[in-house]
C-alpha cells in the first residue's frame, strides 16, 4: 500500500510484463513460444548429431528405388520392380479399403445389436450383452489374432475341394482357409480404363479407373436425380390438389431400367472362381488376412457403436413419440421426422469418432500380415532400407491426414446440428 496513485498513464516498467494483466498474457505467450521453439530446436539438433554419428542423413530418395518385394493384395498394378513409393501407395489403398469396409460393416452390426439390446427378448438381450462386453473388455489386437487363427484353422483347404470333401456354396462362393473366393463382375464389351498419373515419379502413383464403372454410376445417379424430380412434382401436385399421383413404378423404372440396359450392353457377366493348380483362380479373392482384420475390427467397433445407438435411442424421451402421435403422424413418419433427427444428433458425433478409431486400428494389420500402409511403408520398406526416420515421418503424416479429414467431417456436422445455447 505504498502509493495509491490513480494516474492512468504509468511509464512502462519491466515488472509490468509480469504484474500488469494487459502485458502478462503476451509475456506468457512469448515465453511459451520460446520454450516450444527451444524444445523443437533441441530435438532437431540431437537428431542431426545422432544421425551424423550413425553416418546417415535424412533423404527421401529411396522412395523412388525398386522395392524388390511382392504384395499379395493390390488394388492397383504392382510388381516387385516398382518403387517403394508405389508399394506405399498400394498399402495406403489397402488401408483405406479395410477402413471403409470396416466402417460399413461395423455400422450395420452395431445398429442391429444396439436395437436388439433394447428388445424385450430375454435370450437375445443376454446374448447381445455377452457380445458387447466380450468385445469391449478384450484388446482388439487379441481379437484380430484370434480371428486370424479361426479363419485359417477352421474352413476347408483348397485341396479338400479337389477331393470333394468340401463344396462351394451355390457353385460360386468358395470359403477356404486361404480366404473367400466370390464371383467377380466382368464386362464382355468393356469400354476399357482411363489411366491417370502415368509416368509421374517413375510410375509411382498412376492408377486406372474403369470406364464401365463410371458409365454405370453416371446412369444410376442420373436415374436417381430424375426420380427425385418426379417425387418433387408429385409433392407439388399433392399440395395443390390434395391428391398424390401414383409414381412408384415410374420412379423404380427410371432408376433401374437404364442401369440394367447399360449392364446388358456392356455384356455384364460373373466370373466364377475355379479350382486350378494349387488354388482357386478367377473371382475376387478376399484373403484371410483381410477377412480376419475386417471382421475383427468390425465386430470390435460394432460393440461400441451398439452402445452409442442404444444410448441415442434411449435419450429420446417417450414424450416425443407420444407428442408426434398426438399430432397425427404415423409410425414411419414419427421415426423419420421426430425420433431419428434427434437421435442422430446424439449418435453421429461419437459414431464418427468410432470410425476414426477403426481407421487407426487398421494399423494392427501388421499382426496378421495384411499389407496396409504400416505393413509396406512402415514394415518391409523400413526394414529393407533402414530409413526409420523418413518412413515413420511419412507414415505418421499419412495417418494424420486421414484422421484430420475424418474429424473435419465430424466438426462440420457438429457445427451444422449444434443447438444454440447460452
Amino acid at each position: 500500500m505504498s502509493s495509491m496513485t490513480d494516474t492512468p498513464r504509468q511509464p512502462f516498467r519491466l515488472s509490468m510484463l509480469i504484474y500488469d494483466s494487459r502485458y502478462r498474457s503476451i509475456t506468457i505467450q512469448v515465453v511459451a513460444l520460446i520454450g516450444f521453439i527451444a524444445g523443437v530446436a533441441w530435438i532437431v539438433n540431437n537428431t542431426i548429431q545422432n544421425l551424423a554419428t550413425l553416418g546417415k542423413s535424412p533423404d527421401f530418395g529411396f522412395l523412388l528405388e525398386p522395392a524388390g518385394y511382392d504384395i499379395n493384395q493390390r488394388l492397383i498394378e504392382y510388381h516387385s520392380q516398382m518403387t517403394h513409393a508405389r508399394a506405399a501407395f498400394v498399402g495406403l489403398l489397402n488401408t483405406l479399403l479395410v477402413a471403409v469396409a470396416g466402417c460399413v460393416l461395423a455400422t450395420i452390426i452395431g445398429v442391429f445389436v444396439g436395437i436388439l439390446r433394447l428388445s424385450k427378448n430375454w435370450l437375445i438381450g443376454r446374448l447381445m450383452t455377452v457380445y458387447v462386453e466380450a468385445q469391449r473388455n478384450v484388446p482388439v489386437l487379441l481379437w484380430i489374432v484370434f480371428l486370424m487363427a479361426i479363419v485359417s484353422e477352421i474352413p476347408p483347404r483348397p485341396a479338400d475341394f479337389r477331393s470333394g470333401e468340401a463344396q462351394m456354396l451355390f457353385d460360386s462362393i468358395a470359403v477356404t482357409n486361404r480366404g473367400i473366393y466370390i464371383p467377380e463382375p466382368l464386362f464382355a464389351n468393356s469400354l476399357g480404363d482411363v489411366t491417370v498419373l502415368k509416368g509421374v515419379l517413375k510410375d509411382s502413383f498412376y492408377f486406372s479407373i474403369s470406364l464401365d464403372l463410371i458409365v454405370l454410376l453416371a446412369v444410376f445417379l442420373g436415374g436417381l436425380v430424375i426420380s427425385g424430380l418426379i417425387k418433387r412434382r408429385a409433392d407439388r401436385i399433392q399440395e395443390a390438389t390434395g391428391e398424390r399421383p401414383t409414381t412408384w413404378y415410374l420412379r423404380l423404372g427410371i432408376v433401374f431400367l437404364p442401369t440394367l440396359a447399360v449392364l446388358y450392353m456392356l455384356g455384364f457377366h460373373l466370373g466364377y472362381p475355379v479350382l486350378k493348380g494349387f488354388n482357386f483362380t478367377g473371382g475376387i479373392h478376399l484373403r484371410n488376412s483381410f477377412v480376419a482384420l475386417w471382421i475383427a475390427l468390425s465386430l470390435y467397433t460394432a460393440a461400441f457403436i451398439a452402445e452409442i445407438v442404444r444410448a441415442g435411442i434411449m435419450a429420446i424421451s417417450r414424450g416425443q413419440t407420444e407428442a408426434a402421435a398426438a399430432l397425427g403422424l404415423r409410425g414411419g413418419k414419427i421415426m423419420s421426422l421426430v425420433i431419428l433427427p434427434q437421435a442422430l444428433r446424439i449418435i453421429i458425433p461419437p459414431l464418427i469418432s468410432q470410425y476414426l478409431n477403426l481407421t487407426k486400428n487398421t494399423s494392427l494389420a501388421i499382426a496378421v500380415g495384411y499389407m496396409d500402409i504400416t505393413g509396406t511403408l512402415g514394415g518391409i520398406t523400413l526394414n529393407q532400407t533402414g530409413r526409420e526416420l523418413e518412413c515413420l515421418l511419412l507414415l505418421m503424416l499419412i495417418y494424420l491426414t486421414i484422421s484430420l479429414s475424418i474429424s473435419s467431417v465430424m466438426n462440420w456436422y457438429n457445427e451444422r446440428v449444434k443447438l444454440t445455447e447460452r
Partner: protein
Amino acid sequence: MKKTVFFGALAVAGMAAGVAAAGTLDDVKARGKLNCGVSTGLVGFAAPDANGNWEGFDVGVCRAVAAAVLGDPTAVEFVPTTGKTRFTALASGEVDMLARNTTWTFTRDVDLKFEFVGINYYDGQGFMAPKSLGVTSAKELDGATICIQTGTTTELNLADFFRANNMSYEPVPIETNAEAQQQYLAGACDVLTTDASGLAATRASFENPQDHIILPEIISKEPLGPLVRHGDQQWGDLVRWTLNALISAEELGITSANIDELAKGTKNPEINRILGTEGDLGGMLGLDKQWAYRAIKAGGNYGELFEKNIGENTPIGLARGLNAQWKDGGLIYSPPFR
C-alpha cells in the same frame, strides 16, 4: 503431484543408463552385463524357457562373449528384437552385439553401417511342402501360396526367384515364426519358405514330420552371423575372435570336458595360445589370458553348441552339412591363433 512418478522413473533410468560413448568393451565391463540382441523366439536358436533362461545356438554365442569379457556366462541381458527393431537396437547402442540369425549382406554391412564379425551358420533359403502336394521341385510352384516371414531377406529372395523363373505366386507375409508354422500346418499356404535351418527346426516340431518334405532347391545364400556396430574395432575384434576361438576349439579338439586338462599346458602351441598358457593373445584384446578358456568352457566349442541346440540328437535334428569343419568338408573355418 503425480508428476513425480515420471521424474522418478527418469531418475532411475538416468542411473541405469550409466556412461555411454566410451568403448563398448569398457561399457560392458562397467555395466557388468553384456546386452545381447536375440530373436523374440526361434526354436533352437533363441527362446526363453519356463524360468526365463534363454537357450539356443545364438544364445550360446552371447554367453561365450560374456564369459570371455566378464568371466560369467550368465552375465548376459538378452534383449528380444524383432526384424524391425534389431538394427536400430544395435545402432542406438541398446545392445552391444546382435546374435539373431542375421544374414550378412552388402547393404547391411556398408549402408546400415554394421560389422559382421563372422559366420556362425551357413544357411540358405529353402522351401517346405506337404508330401501330399506332390511337389518335388521349387520350379513346380507356379501359382502356389507361400508363407514368408517378413522383415528378412527372405521376401526379396522369393520375389527374385519367382521373377527369374517367370512364375507367379501368392505371398502370405507373417510376422513371427510360430505364426508362420501355424498357418502352414493349417494349410493356409501350400509352401513355407525360410532359411533351411529354420525349416528343419520347424519340421522337427511337427506331429508328423515325415509328411513334409524340404525341396532340394536352395534359392539364396544366407550366411548368418553375429554383428556389432561400425567404428569400434576393439569390440568387433573381441566378438570375432571369441567366435573364432569356439570354432578353433572344435578343430583342435578342445571341449568343455577336456579343457581343464588342456589348460595345464599341451604340446600343441596353438592350443596353448588359445588357452593362454603361451603368449598373451588376451592382452591384445584388452582381456586377460584366460578369456578364450572361459568362452569355450561356458557352453563348449562350436561343435558342442551345435550338437546341444540344433544338432542331430535334438528334436531339430540339423546335420552339420555346410557347417562342418573345413577338415570334414564344411565351410566352418577359423583363421589361425597366432
